[in-house]
Structure formats: C-alpha cells, structure tokens
C-alpha cells in the first residue's frame, strides 16, 4: 500500500510505476524524496556522495542520531519509515556527466537537487532532452512568491526565483528550501500524471 490513501486507482498506478532519479540528497533532494514517497511514488534512484553533518539539520530530512551516516543510506532508512515497500536505490557517488547518464539511465524523470551551481549546470547539460525538474534560487528568507515553477520547453521544469544565491550574504534555510523541494515534487507528480507543463 502506498503512503497516500487518497489516490485514485489511475493516480496510484501512474505514481507507483514512475521511476524518479534524485541527483543530490541535501536540502532539496531529501525533502523532495520525502514528498514523493508520501505522494505515492515507489521507485527512486537517489545519488549523493556526502555524509549527514550538523549544518544539514537546519533543513534536510535527517535527524541528530543520523550524524555521520552516508546521506543516501540515512535517506533510504527515513523513506522506508513512510513506505516500507518503496524501492529506493541508494547510489553513494559524486556524480559527473558520464556517471549521471549511467545512474539515471532507467529513470523517467530526474530531479536536479545539487548545491553547487556548476554541478547543476553539469547535470542539466549531461541530461539535456530528458524530463527533468531543476531548482535554483532558494537562499535566504521571505519572498515566498518569488519562488515559482514553470515549464521550459516540453520536458523541463525550473523551480525557484532563479536569482538568490547561497554565499551572497544569504544562507540556505528550511522554509525556502522546503518550498522549492515541495514544488519540485509537485512538478514530478504532475508530469507523472500526464499534466501539461503549463500546469506544473
């Protein structure tokens, strides 16, 4: 049984069969994965190279007793607490263009959830033409309505304000990162249900 008991049969079938790749298990990726599993997505491929550390706990879907754990292992553990039958492939690797194409080869939709701008650019270029949901511009506080989701072409969704940058006197905090992660998950669900990108 999926975590969402409100789903129609059609929704349950669509979300239960889609395979979603998540590139990065930080603030965006861990929270996006949480929303996806709660929404009924059951096949995830999560890739990250990092371990859970103190500074992650302000916004990422991890807990104090998981400090020092590999992020992909900790995330899989937490997702299993929502749906014990979820199929979560945990890939502990620092992705580059070649490995990203390989790791996400069988994914229907890929979520870009990296931290560094150059890593975001690398992934978008490496997976050009694939169905993807990208986030950028999530730093700081307030300005909730500046964060928006919109279709770029017919296979790509971009989420965020596209401007605010961590390191520009701004830091990443739970509310804005969480808004963007939830919007990424919402876009994935909309795509999986066949909604047009102008409705994401």
């Amino acid at each position: 049984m999926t975590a969402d008991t409100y789903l129609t049969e059609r929704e349950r079938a669509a979300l239960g069969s889609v395979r979603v790749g998540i590139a990065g298990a930080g603030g965006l990726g861990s929270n996006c994965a949480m929303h996806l599993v709660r929404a009924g997505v059951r096949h995830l491929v999560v890739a990250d190279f990092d371990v859970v550390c103190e500074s992650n706990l302000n916004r990422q879907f991890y807990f104090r007793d998981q400090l020092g754990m590999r992020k992909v292992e900790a995330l899989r553990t937490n997702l299993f607490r929502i749906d014990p039958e979820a199929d979560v492939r945990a890939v502990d690797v620092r992705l580059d263009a070649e490995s990203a194409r390989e790791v996400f080869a069988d994914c229907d939709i890929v979520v870009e959830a990296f931290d560094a701008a150059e890593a975001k650019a690398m992934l978008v270029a490496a997976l050009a033409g694939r169905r993807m949901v990208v986030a950028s511009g999530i730093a700081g506080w307030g300005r909730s309505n500046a964060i928006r989701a919109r279709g770029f072409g017919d296979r790509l969704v971009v989420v965020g304000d596209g401007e605010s940058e961590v390191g520009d006197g701004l830091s990443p905090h739970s509310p804005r990162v969480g808004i963007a992660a939830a919007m990424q998950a919402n876009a994935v669900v909309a795509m999986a249900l066949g909604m047009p990108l102008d409705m994401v």
Partner: protein
Amino acid sequence: MTITYRGAPVETEARTVAEFLAERGLDPARAIVEYDGEVYPPGADLSSLPLRDGAALDVFRLTAGG
C-alpha cells in the same frame, strides 16, 4: 529590435542570444535558455542563434544552494 524577455517586451541592440545574455550580464555557462520554445542547456553555443524581432526568450540562472 523588440523581443519578449521573461514575458515582457524588451528593446535590445543584441544580434544573437549570446550577445543578449552578455548585455544583461548573464553567464551562459550557468543558465538555461528557452528561445522560441527550444531549450538550450548551460554551455550551449548561443552565438549561432540570431535574435529575431518579436522572438520570445527566457533565461533561468543556476545559482548555488540546495
């Protein structure tokens, strides 16, 4: 000429999409460009894309944070 940039009319002297990004101080290595419905990933060759009067252009900057 006048193009539609992020949904609003904008006057520009740029002859190509690459020149338009330069005019705006946008780094093409850190941007996704949508030009008349086509998507160009970061690092795409935008200097070979002539800007046309009335064309629709959108740019999404990739910034740090996640």
